[in-house]
């Protein structure tokens, strides 16, 4: 059990590209921590640098009270589960699970006992004699997890743990993973590009872009209070609407309409300031008759999401569309005039740099 602290951590590749740029993160003991970002944002590089598979260019990493910056991967007491699971195809499942013990020169007998014990915990009984190739994707993942568990590490690192599973299995594995982490209580860092995965699993999320930390917070904070427009648009299954506007008379003027100033930005936006008004589609609603403080427009696309409908509304006098999630019963014809309504406590305001105004 241990916390992880990175201090001004930099990983620079030959040619000057920075995979990780001045990272200061503290991951608490026992925490389930997500590194989230689009591909190429440096999240995997950061994970591999913590693992010791990449040498950091400068800065330091501590795990618990140990300085590990220059330690070999095998000396860091860290276990990693790779995206492709990296099971050894020529070894039985039992041998795969107890491989860390083989390296630690534990006797064959004890290795066998340990493999049965750990394999049992991860519902792998009856599969121990098989080869990895004979197992399903979900089972293979559990073997990889079992191998990580059997080395009794201070820290788990998961690289895209769910991305090799098909959609249905992924939900199941997600729940399983969360329960496992809770049971073991081992500090766990995982990398994902899937915001839903990060929101569902993590205690805290670090959102990254171009090697830099964008926001660090709980899923709730990252979802409801994104620090900037990048986080706002990256997190959420339908991206946040980000509309260009101007502050006028205590309202935000967007095209021909004006919406009330978000509660969080009350009194913080100057008259005439160019701002970005942000509202999640789930927090918006539509009315079929005009309403004060709503955005007037007409429906251009209607997408059925099952229990809800995603409407794309073209605003009058504005070149940006706005998306709204409405109940499944409301299915307006294309071209219908609608008024998009919002609640000031659910909307956000960003300045011209993209940073959120107010807390």
């Amino acid at each position, binding site marked *: 059990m241990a916390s992880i602290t990175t201090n001004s951590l930099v990983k620079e590749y030959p040619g000057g590209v920075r995979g990780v740029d001045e990272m200061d993160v503290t991951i608490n003991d026992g925490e389930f921590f997500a590194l989230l970002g689009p591909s190429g944002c440096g999240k995997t590089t950061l994970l591999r640098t913590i693992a010791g598979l990449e040498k950091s260019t400068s800065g330091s990493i501590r795990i618990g009270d140990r300085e590990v910056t220059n330690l070999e991967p095998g000396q860091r007491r860290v276990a*990693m589960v790779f995206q492709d699971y990296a099971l*050894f195809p*020529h070894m039985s499942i039992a041998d795969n699970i107890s*491989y*860390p013990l083989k390296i630690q020169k534990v006797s064959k007998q004890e290795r066998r006992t340990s493999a049965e014990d750990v394999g049992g915990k991860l519902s792998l009984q009856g599969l121990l004699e098989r080869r990895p190739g004979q197992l399903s994707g979900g089972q293979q993942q559990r073997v990889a997890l079992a191998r990580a568990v059997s080395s009794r590490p201070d820290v788990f690192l998961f690289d895209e743990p769910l991305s090799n599973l098909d959609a249905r299995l992924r939900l199941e594995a997600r729940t399983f993973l969360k329960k496992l982490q809770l049971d073991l209580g081992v500090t766990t860092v995982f990398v994902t590009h899937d915001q839903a995965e990060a929101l569902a699993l993590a205690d805290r999320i670090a959102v990254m872009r171009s090697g830099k930390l964008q926001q660090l917070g709980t899923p709730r904070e990252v979802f409801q209070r994104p620090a900037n427009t990048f986080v706002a648009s990256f997190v959420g299954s339908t991206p946040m609407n980000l509309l260009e506007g101007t502050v006028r008379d205590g309202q935000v003027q967007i095209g021909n309409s004006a919406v009330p100033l978000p509660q969080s930005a009350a009194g913080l936006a100057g008259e005439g300031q160019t701002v970005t008004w942000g509202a999640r589609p789930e927090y918006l609603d539509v009315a079929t008759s005009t309403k004060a403080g709503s955005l007037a427009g007409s429906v251009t696309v209607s997408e059925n999401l099952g229990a809800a409908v995603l409407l794309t509304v073209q605003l009058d006098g504005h070149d940006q569309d706005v998306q709204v999630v409405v109940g499944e019963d409301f299915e307006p014809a294309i071209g219908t005039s609608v008024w998009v309504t919002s609640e000031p406590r659910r909307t956000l305001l960003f300045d011209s740099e993209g940073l959120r105004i107010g807390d």
Partner: protein
Amino acid sequence: MADDGDVAGLGKARATAFLAPALLLISVFLVFPALWTLYLGVTNFRLSGSAARNPKFVGLDNYINALSDDRFLNSLGLTIVFVFASAVVGQSVLGFSIAWTMTRVRKPVRAVVEFFVLLAWIIPSSVTTFLWYALLDRSNGTLNAMLSTGHMAWLLQYPLQSIIVFNTWVGTAFSMLLFSSALASVPPSQMESARMVGAGTWAQLRDVVFPHIRGHALTNTLLITLWTFNTFTPYLLTAGGPDDRSNILPIFIYRLALNDGALGQGAAISLIMIVINLVIATVYLRLLKERKS
């Protein structure tokens, strides 16, 4: 039309015409010599003299003579040592070691090393043997100058060792190339998994690398064993001497058939060699098949 397999619609005559040149070449240069060797092996045919004009059928005498001939048995023994030391051990181990080392060095270093190793392989053997002559020469040899060993006659003192080192040097490039591509097929995540649990170089090789490249290693050993078994190049260095001490089978056959003129005897031994080749190939292919099932 459809079920006689004539997809191109050429008709038998034209199809045969297309195949004829290739078949003719194969017949003239492969089938006929093979059959001719088979025939020679059961005669007392000689390069000159009365037996050249009127070869007599001698049955299996040539084979019986060969198998009870000390020179043949000596030669077979030398060949086995030569193949084992220079191919199975020398080329494989050295080739793998270079390939493994090259996965950990910078690209330019790798390019330079591979270039020189390949050079040994692609330079004509007449040229490389000349270079080795210069290296091992008794009076003005480079090796003697480097080791200050005076006038050591390497090729006379250590003829078998010399051709073993020579053949290892020439042939390592192939093993290196084959193992390089084999190593590239080892999933990096498996190597990293091993590193994460603290596996050292030896454990990584044992648990990840070797199991992955076993098939490649077998193929490599099969090919270089056969090539080394049949190589004639060492003749240019030692001519089988001194005193038959580097008289490996191909050289033995050449000297027997063309220097001594005993073509019938030579043909019989050639056939024995082919049989040995076939046995080696069969054993390896069996091993390969077992791996796959």
